[in-house]
């Protein structure tokens, strides 16, 4: 990177894995068929996501999403789409809860890699409160989709 750009203060936020996923965008596209769909929007910045999930019994079979937003929100959706399939619905919920707790902790919670998987890369977001919503957007959409399935 050239010139005066401030690499250090941002390194915790923009992990390599995040920058990579922001480009890779795993799971992008309309999932067909799907069991539930949620559309979420962050009114502050206009980021949005439409996320679909398909279950196979108790297990998440696949996740697909379309959306636009910052690198954090896009990378987060991509990591979700790669990591969550294969988890049970309950396991997915634990991961969402762990991520939420971590991100809201402002750095006071130690990330648990076993529980978080690749989402551990977002640990640095905890020090940037304004970005927590970006990192959580896809996960909240998944959570609400699972809620909807539970309610049926």
């Amino acid at each position, binding site marked *: 990177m050239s010139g005066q*750009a*401030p690499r250090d*203060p941002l390194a915790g*936020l923009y992990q390599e894995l995040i920058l990579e996923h922001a480009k890779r965008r795993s799971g992008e596209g309309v999932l067909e068929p799907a069991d539930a769909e949620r559309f979420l929007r962050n009114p502050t*910045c206009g980021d949005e996501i439409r996320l679909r999930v398909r279950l196979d019994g108790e297990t998440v079979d696949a996740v697909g999403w379309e959306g636009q*937003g910052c690198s954090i929100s896009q990378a987060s959706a991509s990591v979700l789409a790669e990591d969550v399939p294969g988890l049970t619905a309950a396991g997915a919920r634990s991961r969402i809860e762990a991520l939420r707790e971590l991100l809201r902790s402002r750095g006071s919670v130690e990330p648990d890699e076993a529980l978080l998987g690749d989402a551990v890369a977002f640990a640095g977001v905890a020090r940037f409160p304004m970005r927590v919503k970006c990192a959580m957007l896809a996960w909240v959409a998944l959570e609400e989709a699972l809620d909807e399935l539970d309610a049926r």
Partner: protein
Amino acid sequence: MTTTSAEATLSEERIELLRADFPILAEQPGGVPLVYLDSGATSQQPRQVLEAEWVFRTQRNAAVHRGAHTLAALATDDYELARERIARFVGAKPTEISWAMNATDALNTVALSLAEANRAGATDPALRIREGDEILVTEAEHHANLLPWQRLADETGATLRWIEVDDDGVWTLEDALAAITERTRLVAIAHVSNVTGLIAPVEAIARAAHAVDALVVLDACQSVPHRPVDLPALGVDAAAFSSHKMLGPGGVGVLYLTAQLGAALPPARVGGSMITTVTMTERDYLPAPQRFEAGTQPVGAIVGLAAAVDYLEAVGMRAIERHEVALGERLAAGAAAIDGVRLVGPRPGSERAGLASVIVDGVHAHDVGQVLDAAGIAARVGHHCAQPLHRRLGVAATTRASTYLTTTEAEVDRFLDVLSTVRSYFGVGR
């Protein structure tokens, strides 16, 4: 823009002196020196404003226009002198100035009052808005100058029309004149756009609007703080601006209503201090401006705003305008020259206010803002409360740098420098 006279703009030395009045500019909120380029959202406050409020609140604070005791008399004096001071700043009479919570509230007051007048049958034809009539705005308006009119149109059955913008977010006087028709009853526009920096030809629009008996409401949020504005000379019927964008404290919006409109409009809010006689079933209202000032007003903050106006005039609004216009041009020209950066608003070399918004190809504005913030630069990212404009520009968010009297060329250059590194940081567009 270059100027020859030392009086005409602000020298570097002068700005250094001014900056010393603003304690926050010495802060390092992120561990790096602050480069504050977000005055368009809210401005910072000089010591003089804080001190004026402190004096009022520790020596003369009381309920105004109510008590007969000495403290109340002192507070009432300060309050009405502040009104005179602020009125003079925009060329208005004190009775044409009333207070609101912010500019949004002031604009809502006008719209709510017009709705109320029309529900009551609008005996005054100047206020009448009905089905088939048109309310005209631009596609670039701040939500504060759009939603109240949407709602007024919905309620009265009028049609909301808008002056469209081009691919840069710009509209012209011809567009405006073409949009004003015999059916136009009200034109609401921003004097200066908070996203594009476009300066509206208000006088010509007001003339055209008045020729068809339409009212003209001016969103002066981005003009009054940054350039000399004479509201009566512009010929508008109503105008709104916010204390917190002009070195003053938060919590004060200023509503300007011509004597004529102020006398015709019913109040939006009702309660104490704005009535003559109240029975359990009837109420009579005081004339403007009190009619629009229900309940206890933010007196300390209004005194602070008067001090802010004193400060601005001591520096000189013409000099501030020149300084900022130069910085705006520097921002626009600099941004337009960066590869992969798209400048919104008037092209470099065209008239614009002291702000510029940009789109960085391939990088979301939130990420741009984060890189800037890491360098200590407080710029604003998002839709800037102008979603329709952003939709037209084809993006959800832009990055805006906005200047004020304390902004230096060096700060603008620092912004441009960091901006030029953003795309490579995210590995796009090499």
